[in-house]
């Protein structure tokens, strides 16, 4: 029988599980073999897991960011428009000259957490007091930096612009968070460019700058 030849150096007494403990080298050689086989099996299982785990990542098509043009001509001063882009609410506001004046007042600056927009919640082209390219038009991602609700547009004469319905975070008309709010950061400014007067393009940067949603500290 074939099995007898194979098992003869393991055991001759009909109980192969007992092994042959008198043969030191046999045991060591078998330990090496089983450790080696185990290691190879583990390596194989790890290799097989790679495509499985890989496939659980989102389909790149589902997360691909496209561009969206916004026409500003019919956006009346003092009003907000909400558009969906990259699966997110984007808030576009046409600010009046009075509102722009308040946004520059030192009294308002004292009430803000990050008046100079130092934290990277926007591209370099929006790291200014109006947090935009053209001061009249503000573009922010309408996702509260606290826990993600959409803040409600509620412009006030003191410069307040949004109130978050979830836990009362306040943001000014430049999307900067007011001290005392649970939200830690200013509202993010998405990448955008002015393609021609009166038209913004979301998802594209002004020539010479680069910025993407992934660069935002917290969205």
């Amino acid at each position, binding site marked *: *029988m074939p*099995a*007898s030849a194979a*098992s003869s150096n393991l055991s001759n007494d*009909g*109980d*192969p*599980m007992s092994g042959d403990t008198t043969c030191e080298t046999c045991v060591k050689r078998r330990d090496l073999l*089983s450790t080696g*086989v185990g290691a190879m*099996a583990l390596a194989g299982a790890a290799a097989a897991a*790679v*495509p*499985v785990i*890989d*496939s*659980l*990542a989102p*389909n*790149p*098509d589902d997360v691909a960011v496209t561009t969206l043009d916004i026409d500003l001509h019919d956006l009346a001063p003092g009003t907000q428009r909400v558009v969906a882009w990259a699966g997110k609410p984007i808030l576009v506001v046409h600010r009046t000259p009075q509102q722009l004046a308040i946004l520059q007042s030192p009294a308002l600056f004292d009430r803000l957490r990050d008046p100079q927009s130092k934290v990277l919640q926007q591209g370099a082209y929006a790291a200014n007091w109006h947090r935009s390219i053209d001061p009249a038009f503000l573009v922010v991602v309408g996702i509260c930096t606290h826990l993600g609700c959409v803040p409600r547009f509620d412009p006030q004469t003191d410069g307040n612009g949004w109130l978050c319905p979830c836990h009362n975070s306040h943001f000014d008309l430049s999307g900067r968070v007011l001290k005392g709010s649970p939200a830690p950061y200013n509202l993010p400014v998405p990448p955008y460019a002015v393609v021609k007067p009166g038209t913004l393009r979301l998802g594209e940067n002004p020539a010479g700058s680069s910025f993407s949603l992934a660069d935002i500290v917290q969205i």
Partner: protein
Amino acid sequence: MTPATRLDLDPDQAPEPATGSWLERRLPVGRALRREYRDYPLPRNLNALWFFGAFAVVTLAAMIVTGICLALHYTPTEAGAFDSVEAIIRRVPSGWILRSVHMAGASCFFAVLYVHIFRGLYYGSYKAPREVLWLSGFVALLMVMATAFFGYVLPWGQMSYWGAVVVGNAVAAIPLIGHPLAGMLLGGDAPGAATPMRFFVLHMLCGGLICAVLFIHIAALHVTGSNNPAGIEPRSPADTLPMHPFYTTKDGVGLCLFLAVLLGLAFLAPALLTEADNYLPANPLLTPPDITPEWYFTPFYALLRSVPSRLGGLLLAGAALAVVAAVPWLDRAPTRSARFRPLARPAWFAMAASFLLLGLAGSHEATGFWLWLGRLAGLYWFLHFLVLLPLIARIERPLPLPTSLA
């Protein structure tokens, strides 16, 4: 004289007193696993044909893992199904690997099961006391067939669609309940808006049921223990070897070879197992020039077409399977292994050849030579199970059996 089985050796498997760790005393899984998968005694003379049950288990596991990943990206709608499968192949990270393995896995599953079954037929593994084991395996085969068919329709290509049309009409041919049944299956008179979702649910449901049936299959196997090439029960501990390390190692070697074949098919020859027509979106207005089923259904497809009657063909294909389920009661010879049966052994080869010829006939157009080859092979298939096996059991004089396996 009925041979001793594991049941007889150990008639009241009374639970041993609970010992061991805190968990072990409350849920003695470790002890059960050691008893059933490490110390479990197997005949010492099992050959490579006993690999195939383990191959089937591993294939099933691979199908479930890859299937779950594919399901996460599949869209079960008439408009979205085809594109979502294309996206899996082209866009989903590693999606092409998972789909290739899932498709090659389906083919390998059948190849493995056919070897597994013909092994059982050769060595008489279906005979007492393993009838329930045999039947549980048979149910698993039916579930695998159903799962494969439902899965084949999911990509909603031309072959998918027309396969669903043909099977829908075949189901509708069943007297009385056929029409409402086909309507429930397809969610309409023809495959349409409701079909992908129904087939998606059925595909996953049947896949899960295979696991349940497999549990019963293995449980039944561990009651009787394995048969072996000699077809006699082990008489003493010297006739057996513990599963670990002997058969775990041996199965491991077989498994490496099997995985090489499976992955070789998936990576090097994916086109061998697919029909180019299925990469055209389903078109209800245009039937592809030749629709042949997947190779594993061709023997039954040949029978389906061998008589000029829709219901008749359906009954023949069903009966071809039913005789396999009934074989423990058709073959009453006490000797199990064909090695010691001078008449049953050549009959087995002729029967296996008739199955292959049926498959060949089923993959060609049903005219002239192939039609008649299919008819003759089908006739022999039934002749073997219904006439030859019962007859041989009466007239055959078996060779002397060995007295031990050692």
